[in-house]
């Protein structure tokens, strides 16, 4: 019982020591060569607009004259959709 209590006290004291050291030393942002992380992650550019070849010449739903449409091309073969369960070795199966 006493040993457990002593361990707890020691761990707390060590943690307090490390935190104090960090607080006193600062977070390192002021040091030379420090590059701050970007405040906001830059979003990747928007993907190019995928226009179906079957789209009409005019993308207007109210056009009084129905335009002639391009033909929809045959699509290349697509890989099959794979669904699998990844289990980490040694992880619980629950």
């Amino acid at each position, binding site marked *: 019982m006493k040993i457990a209590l002593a361990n707890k006290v020691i761990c707390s004291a060590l943690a307090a020591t490390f935190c104090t050291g960090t607080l006193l030393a600062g977070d390192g942002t002021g040091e030379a060569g420090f590059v701050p992380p970007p405040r906001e992650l830059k979003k990747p550019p928007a993907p190019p607009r995928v226009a179906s*070849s*079957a789209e*009409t*010449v*005019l*993308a*207007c739903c*109210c*056009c*009084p*004259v*129905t*335009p*002639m*449409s*391009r*033909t*929809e*091309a*045959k*699509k*290349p*073969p697509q*890989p*099959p959709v794979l669904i699998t369960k990844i289990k980490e070795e040694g992880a619980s199966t629950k």
Partner: protein
Amino acid sequence: MIEPLPTARVWAWALVCFFVAASGLRAASEWQVPESPLRYKLELAGKPTHPSAGYFARLPDGGILPGSTVTTVVMTEDGKVIPGWLLWQNADTGFSMVFADPGSPVRAVYVYVLSGRVAQLWKPESGLTPSAILCASPGHDSLPAAQALAKLGRVEPSVHSTNHAGIPKAPFSIGGDLTGRPRPGSFYFLTYLETAEAGSYWFAPMIIDGQCEIFLDGTKLNPKERSKKWGGTGTSVDLTKGLHRVEVFQTAGGTGSYSDNKKSGGLMFLTWRPPDEDPDHIKGAGSRNGAESRVINRSEIVRSGECKLTAVESRNGAPVAVATATPDLCYWFENEDPLILYNLSALTAGQPDDATYTWTFPKEGELAGADVQWLFPGLRENTVRLTVKSAKGTSTCVVPFFGFSTRKTNLEKADQREAFRKVLAAMLEAYPHSPDPVANWSSAWWNNILRTVEGGEGYPLLLQLFTGHLDAARKKLSPGQLFALQDVLLDQTQRQNPGEALHWIQKFQPDASSASRRNELKLREGEIQMYDFNDRKMAEKTFADLAGPGESSERAKVRLGDLAFLEGDLNKATGFYADVQRRARARRNAAPSLAGSLVADQLVQGGPAQPAQPDWRSSPPAAQNPLKTGGGPEQKHGALQEVSLSENVRTLIADNFLLEARQALLAWEIEFPLSKISGDYILRESAFHMKMGDWKRARPMLEAYCRQIDASGFLPAAASMLIACVEGAKETPSPALIATLGKVKDRLKYHPVAADLDRFLSAAGKPSN
């Protein structure tokens, strides 16, 4: 706008009516107007919204009507004369007319044509209120051209009219030329509006494009701005309750399609505000700030009834040629010319029993039959001539039309690819030999052949193409495109007539400019000797002659292995396969990946539709690259690649990508030929041939596999497929086959496939133990 009615014309018309009435009532089968040489039978399809609107009809001419003017007498089947008036007429496309509603019991009327009479044009005073008739004159961009249409009577061949008020969003509108003809154009819109009550109506026309003039009961509207609100520019008109004539004269300048104007689409629409509607509560107002008017509702527009032409007959029983050209599928990609499939139908009702129908396409041959199909270039004027012959005479008409279709077409659909191939094959058969129309085909024709051709399909088309038009194909196609089409034809000819396939190989030899192509053809020749003629000696000699560096030599070695496999020499077969596979393994790291796009796409872009090939010259000789024999990363990599190839072929076959599956099989075979013995290559290859209905080609290797492989995980599937091949080919099983399957059954007696083997063997006459 409207000319006064000449007294002479009134008298002439009265005389005609009197004569017709005096001729007495006759049964429908009788010729009710003796002096008329021809009559149309019209079925009354859609009732008019108002009795006075009558029925609008468009009747074809194209050379069948006598004289240059048209006078008609409309009669019911029981002989009652119906008042009718001509609207527009030309000798090329025919005439449009309006006639009174004969009443509800009447379902059909006859329109008799009289020659040598003055045409009776519709006038507002006639009592009929035809609406909403849109008449278009393509090629003209002027108000006088639009106003000329209002004079009715004879017009240019390109002028056309239709009963079309507008679209649901703008029921009273002019959108453009509904036949698809491009700008410029002029329009005359003859309509009647119904007012529910007397009072002051606010008319606010919305002119989107071009010039526009609107006349209400013959008086021009002069819109002025009254407010900034939507519909605030207009004019007030005091109207009585009832029907009021609205005539719109519209122009459309510029060039190109009417649907190119993205911001609006359309030329004009008319809005109004009836006297009983409060501006603050107008329904369907087009602005948040309130509106002065609203679009005219469909129910407020008078519309004439619709007719359907069911028969055209001549008085003397001679045939009358009348045809319709209906647009169907449209094959249009990128900047190519659109190709539109048209259904051409001759009107057969009322024609003599012995009538024959012939369609003539200018400079492109003839087709026989009442209903045919043809591909026409889109977005341009086309013509087709129909000739009907019988013992009583000959009649000819010319059908002009503008190539245009709004039918959505998708080459993902097998039937829409087949439709193109089928119609083009019929066209090629009809084409004259000299001058060959194929020589003038644009790239659209060739590219659509490449897009729609499939493994196991399109034999009639390719047969026609290479039989009568090989020279044009050689000039227009790149070597890769030409070879790909030749291979598809050879695949199918080999299945149907191996001897003819050998003949085609000889015919294609001059096109084989490269050694690799010549070797490919030689390989195919050997395969026909091996699989179809069972001449294994000759096949062995053919394959052995293909020695030397390069892929053809490697493939020839694989074929020598196949020969040994078929002959039952498993060791020899394994030797050939292992030799090829060892060298392939040495090259593997340098080999590019397999092509992932459609064969058709590669061909259209001018690329080679061949499996990805390594550079054979830089491949190190096998002797200088001893391979590791122990298990390791290389072996794992090879095993993964082999599984990947197998799975790729399986999915390609399942999804009907047969050309791509063929490529994948060729690539697999040259990389892992030992898969024929230790893997599932033969299963996949047989599935490929079976998918194309080529049972004969699939069977030998399956039979050899079942005979020589004692035990493998693929044996049950091979046995099932072998049974399917024999049953699919409807062959009588040979004793050797029965013996082979009997032994397989002994080996697999506890496997579920044993039941199938039992059934097959019992049916074949062998006791099933």
